[in-house]
């Protein structure tokens, strides 16, 4: 048992157990599949190619182009969204995997007339220049401040390490997140 050779992994007793059980047949294979998702409170039903990433689905099928596509391999964080309340990279998920999920994108945050306190803080602290990375930073920060309403500067820098910004040098973003935490706390306390 201890020194079982790699090339010969068989376990006869377990095999006996298996043959006693009826063999399960494999579930179907799909190349397209119908999915239902709720995005920013709106229900959508759509048939998608199984190889379509979630970010492409949001942008191309639903027209929600606020979520940006950067590196498409999980490094830049521009495509960060909330999936069932958790920040995830939507370029590393397939739309088909989101079937049944609740999604929040940057369009669900605020409106141009009535910005979310987080967006106001980003504006006030010059936490963006070209704006390409901003939706990802906002969604990352939104989830972060929900879990940790009073973060230290170290914690803010650590969480922001998952998103790339090539304009600001991050200083304004750190300040914006610090200020947003304050604004959200007083909004909740009111």
């Amino acid at each position, binding site marked *: 048992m201890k020194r*079982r050779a*790699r090339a010969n*992994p*068989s*376990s006869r*007793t*377990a*095999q006996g*157990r*298996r043959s006693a059980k009826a*063999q*399960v*047949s*494999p*579930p*179907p*294979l*799909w*190349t397209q*599949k119908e999915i239902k998702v709720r995005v920013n409170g709106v229900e959508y039903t759509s048939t998608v*190619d*199984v*190889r*379509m*990433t979630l970010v*492409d689905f949001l942008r191309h099928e639903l027209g929600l182009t606020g979520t940006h596509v950067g590196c*498409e*391999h*999980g490094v830049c*964080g521009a495509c*960060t969204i909330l*999936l069932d309340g*958790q*920040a*995830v*990279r939507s*370029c*590393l*998920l*397939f739309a*088909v*995997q989101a079937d049944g999920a609740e999604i929040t994108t940057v369009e669900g945050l605020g409106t141009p007339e009535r910005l979310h306190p987080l967006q106001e803080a980003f504006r006030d602290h010059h936490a963006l220049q070209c704006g390409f990375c901003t939706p990802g930073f906002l969604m*990352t920060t939104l*989830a*972060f401040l929900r879990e940790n309403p009073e973060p230290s500067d170290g914690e803010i*820098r*650590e*969480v922001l*390490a*998952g998103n790339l910004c090539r304009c600001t040098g991050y200083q304004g973003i750190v300040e914006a997140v610090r200020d947003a935490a304050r604004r959200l706390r007083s909004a909740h306390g009111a």
Partner: protein
Amino acid sequence: MKPAPFQYAAPETVEESLALLRAFGEEGKVLAGGQSLVPLLNMRLARPSVLIDLNRVRELSYIRDEGMTVAIGAMTRQRAVELSGLVRERLPLLAEAVRYIGHPQIRNRGTIGGSLAHADPAAELPVVALVLGAQLVIRGPKGTRSLRPEEFFVSYLRTALEPEELLVEVRFPAHRAYGTAYLEVARRHGDYALVGVAAMVRMEGERCAEARLGFTGVGPVPVRLPEVEEAVAGRHLDDATLAEVGRIVADRLEPQSDIHASAAYRREVAGVLAGRALRLAAARFKGGEGG
């Protein structure tokens, strides 16, 4: 569309997953958290014809207290492990190391089993499994088998998993009798480690009774250095001992150079981190003793 075409299956049980692996294991690929596989698919470096998505297999997501062992289902998210009170209390080394994996967005999706089965040579979980003496529980057409990390990790991104097999559980021995520490140096927080060190120490008074030391990022698989572990046994972990540790580590490890760091730099860092990790683990051992 970024990835090459594939067919997709979403099993809901382990049995269904195994049936899919029996039918398509050779040409297919198992999708766990997807934080390493989907980049490979998007870059078309991997082109499996069938993708077996385990994300709806709920029975593989659990953290179970089994007395001397904590059993973690392969599809348990890294974030769930990070936030688990049981893990923090019983497996502090794992709790500490898991925070170094990527970023929260990555750990919200990334799984324990996925990271181990991917076997990246600079990843955190393989070296933790190695130092803790974890058991990797594997199901396949011939039943269930259990491998030690030394047997499981074969080379760069290669494990002893056969195409029809599935990693279903990792069994970590609880290690409250030890002080532990995980340290690493990376370019940014969340990047893969240039070097990572996991240390486990049991002290008797001021002397180190037993030590285990594992390294990641310094070769094709995570490594332990028995020479170092023997060298510190029975000794005070003072500056002289730790300097000797650093020398042996730098001498015995054979890391590679890449664009991030030279082999010489990695050796140097490994030696320094090894000393720091031993000292921290020893301090925690004493702290944990009620001091």
